[in-house]
């Protein structure tokens, strides 16, 4: 009998379930199984936490915060070890979910996850196809001042294609919430940076993407219009922590 068990992390103050921006990540993405090291997410975690801290600094009663759910789908992993490692590294995880690969999507839906982060492209794609917004975690070599969220603008400008990607609705509502969060900070010095990249289409269509996002409440900080130029060199400079698009975009192009 499969069971999905959810355990609250008592070390961390629980967020308002209705207002928080729930971000789920698998243990695989956080812990490298062999070395027990904190991986790509390890770099994003402190930055996520910094966003929360800065939001609370501005308003101690702030409810629009990141709420991280850590999902373990590998029955080999011991729940106690996961919880203690989380505590050891000081990761601000709100809840732990002990699930299975088959129940991953259900776990995400039940926990009202708005964004699922993974280092596994297939896993992210699978989740995305079921309507939950997914993003790949970027590998970080250099430290960053802010959490960099990259949006792929081609998806925003593209007229409704058939079939419409399953996660399109989730993407729109997420970007609105993210926009609200970004809006709490000024033009400079924000712990959250929104980066727009358009690969095809010229400057005009990137301009349309900028204005479309703005109309949804998301003010972009940086914009790069490639108009067919190769993405690799730019992406390696931009080093986003999360990359969102229609479906899932591979960061290592």
């Amino acid at each position, binding site marked *: 009998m499969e069971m999905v068990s959810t355990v609250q992390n008592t070390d961390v103050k629980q967020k308002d379930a209705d207002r928080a921006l729930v971000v789920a990540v698998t243990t695989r993405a956080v812990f490298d199984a062999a070395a027990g090291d904190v991986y790509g997410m390890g770099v994003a975690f402190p930055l996520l936490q910094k966003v929360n801290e800065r939001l609370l600094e501005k308003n101690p009663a702030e409810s629009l915060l990141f709420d991280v759910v850590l999902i373990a789908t590998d029955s080999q992993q011991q729940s106690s070890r996961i919880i203690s490692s989380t505590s050891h590294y000081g990761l601000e995880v709100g809840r732990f979910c002990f699930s299975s690969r088959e129940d991953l999507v259900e776990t995400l839906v039940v926990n009202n996850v708005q964004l699922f982060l993974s280092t596994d492209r297939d896993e992210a794609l699978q989740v995305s196809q079921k309507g939950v917004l997914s993003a790949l975690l970027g590998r970080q070599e250099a430290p960053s001042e802010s959490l960099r969220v990259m949006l792929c603008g081609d998806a925003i400008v593209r007229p409704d294609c058939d079939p419409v990607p399953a996660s399109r609705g989730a993407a729109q509502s997420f970007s609105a919430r993210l926009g609200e969060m970004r809006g709490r900070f000024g033009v400079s010095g924000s712990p959250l940076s929104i980066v727009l990249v358009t690969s095809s*289409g*010229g*400057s005009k269509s990137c301009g349309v993407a900028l204005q479309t996002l703005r109309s949804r409440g998301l*003010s972009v900080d940086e*914009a790069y219009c490639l108009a067919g130029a190769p993405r690799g060199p730019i992406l390696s400079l931009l080093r986003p922590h999360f990359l969102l698009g229609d479906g899932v975009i591979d960061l290592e192009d």
Partner: protein
Amino acid sequence: MSEIKAKDFAPTGDAGEEKDAAKAHFDNLKTNKPRPPKPQYAVTIAVSSRTLFNMVTERKIYEDQGLEEYVAYQRDHENEPLMPGPAFPFVKALMTVNARLRQLYPDSEELFDIVLMTNNHAQVGVRLINSINHYGTLHLQPDISRLARRTAAAAHTFKGSPLYPNLHTMSLQLPFPLSDLTIERFCMTGGESPTGYLEAYMTNLYLSKDSEKVSEAIEEGIAAATMFMAVKENELSDTQLRVAFDGDAVLFSDESEIIVKEGGLDTFFAHEKKFENTPLAQGPLKCFLEALGKLQRKFYAKNERLNCPIRTFLVTARSAASSGARVLKTLRSWGLEIDEALFLAGAPKGPLLQKIKPHIFFDDQMFHIEGARELGTISAHVPYGIGQKYNKGKLIESPAKKK
């Protein structure tokens, strides 16, 4: 912006159907303008927002009132196109060359590619994009003042409809292909210096108003210069791109300039005579001259040498008799041609440049830049070499704020 809508929206059966209009709009975005060239084949020119457009007023707001006010101001005015900046005539001339290249080589990617490279915030970018689009549609409405000067006798009645005030000029016979302002690529870093991206966009030449960024680029081996508006406007060719270069410390290294500064003119002349057959080392703009030469040869290959839309000039303080030979021999050894070499033997460059009327003039010495500007030449300072320490006029101050 009604002119833009009239041009870009394909007619739809049901004008109220937003979705159809958006789709048609997107399709038109794809088919209206020629596709930008692949960066690895193109000659990529990166221009900053302040060189492409005149942002003097906005800059003042930034300096006096800070970043938030500046961004808010730009947002409030984002449907007002910005006026052209110092690089604008140069960029328009590049588009003219592209139009000619596309006529002769319809499938080639060897074209100029312009990238807007700015550390502006993306919200300011909306105004920049709108401004680019505004000038991009002006190919239907050629520069009225220039045409007026040319057809002064016939054109004393400039009446047009309110929507298309320049419509009547379309009946004028124009002997050259009109070019759009086509800037399809950009990089808006939201505060970070964009110089890190120059290489990623395969930049051949970077133009900015910020001398610090220009110096950084030169240190990375990318041709770059700080642009200065001319004090008055010379009338520039709209059929031919004209680029003028200083020699020492621009096309060539500053090795000879060091000798002048340290040993005086006589030492310099003796040295240059002695080493006449030794090529000078290359300077920061050599590669850009090389790129121009490559495109020129494409015209020569099609028998268009006499009608070539690119012309290059060397404007040097060297004299033809004593120190000029080494320069010409160096160019020859590099396999590079320059269309006109002008040896001033120390005379001021301003008056000569006023006659040449280049779209841009590169020099390493602010003294020459100032002289050129005063007489109407748009100038670009190359902050390289010994000339930076020994300037007669004021020292080059980098602005206190980086943005």
